[in-house]
């Protein structure tokens, strides 16, 4: 074989109202084949109502070695969570 078919990442929406979620990857020569192959590989039991395919080389990912620094700004902001606020027990529906 001269050239391996490009890799595509597959995202599936399992039903209307839910997000597309990463399912895995497949090989295909073009976008249409990628969708058809994704259908055959990842939705043999009606697992999806919509498919996204993206060439894997187009995905830009954060570097796990830098994740400490990258996510550091949120680490000490516990006041962003509702449980940070000390309220009386008799207070309802809040």
């Amino acid at each position: 074989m001269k050239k391996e078919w490009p890799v595509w990442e597959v995202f599936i929406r399992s039903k209307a109202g839910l997000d597309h979620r990463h399912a895995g990857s497949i090989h295909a020569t073009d976008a249409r084949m990628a969708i058809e192959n994704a259908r055959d590989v990842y939705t043999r039991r009606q697992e999806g109502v919509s498919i996204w395919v993206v060439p894997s080389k187009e995905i830009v990912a954060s570097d796990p070695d830098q994740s400490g620094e990258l996510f550091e700004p949120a680490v000490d902001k516990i006041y962003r969570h509702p449980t940070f606020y000390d309220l009386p027990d008799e207070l309802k529906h809040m």
Partner: protein
Amino acid sequence: MQLNTEDLEREFQAKIDSGRSIEPKDWMPEKYRKTHIRQISQHAHSEIVGMLPEGNWITRAPSLKRKVTLLAKVQDEGGHGLYLYSAAETLGITRDELYEQLHSGKAKYSSIFNYPAVTWADMGAVGWLVDGAAIMNQVMLTRTSFGPYARAMVRICKEESFHQRQGFEIMLTLCQGTEVQKRMAQDALNRWWWPSLMMFGPKDEESTHTEQAMKWRIKLKTNDELRQQFVDQTIPQIKILGLEVPDKDLKWNESRGSYDFGAINWEEFWNVVAGNGPCNKERLEARKSAFENGAWVRDAAMAYAEKKEALKEAV
């Protein structure tokens, strides 16, 4: 701060010990990467080689129902192979390299598929016993430490249960049929029982990889533990079928709460692993010829896509 390898390894082990998963872009010891490429690809190869003995029976299935079922099962196995190849590729090896390792014999696949499927009852025994044994291993692997492998296993386990049930149903139908059909079922059980027990791999004391595999949470149970679990689970099923277990040493051990079973013929196991099973050559030849004879189709599809892309850019 630059960490040295020793620190990185300690951090890596701590991560695994605390139950966290390892993802493809995380730092990992080279040996962890290599072990996973070996294991995941071996698993993927087993799925696609596993299509062959059953594919052989699609055109000869005894009814339309059995035919569509078998077709769906074989398609699932193709799908499972693809989930696993895609998990292996996240570790930086290409699909062609993986195929090349299978074709050259560098990579192995499950030896069980080197046994022939000679009667229709074999389709029952394979689904029930071979898929049953595989499920036991795969359920364990849904909790393995490498994220893409564990996720592929979750997907596979969901689909695999149908494989085992349809196999058992084939056996049950034969066992409720004529005397000849029941004999056919017993014969299939006799031939597949021991190779199924061998599927769990060598005895613990002879399994070279077990210790490291447990430490890295690649495995959560030993070969012998899984094998015992399989025997204990399957004996009552054999009774439901009204068949005989082809093991004269099998007996219930009250104190262990498990069945004791006879000695496995390890010489046969190693002989099949070494390539001398009844179908090793045939299976590998089938995979190689599918790959080679399909090359022109893959090349043509790629050339067509590139040409279309070039035209689009020219406009």
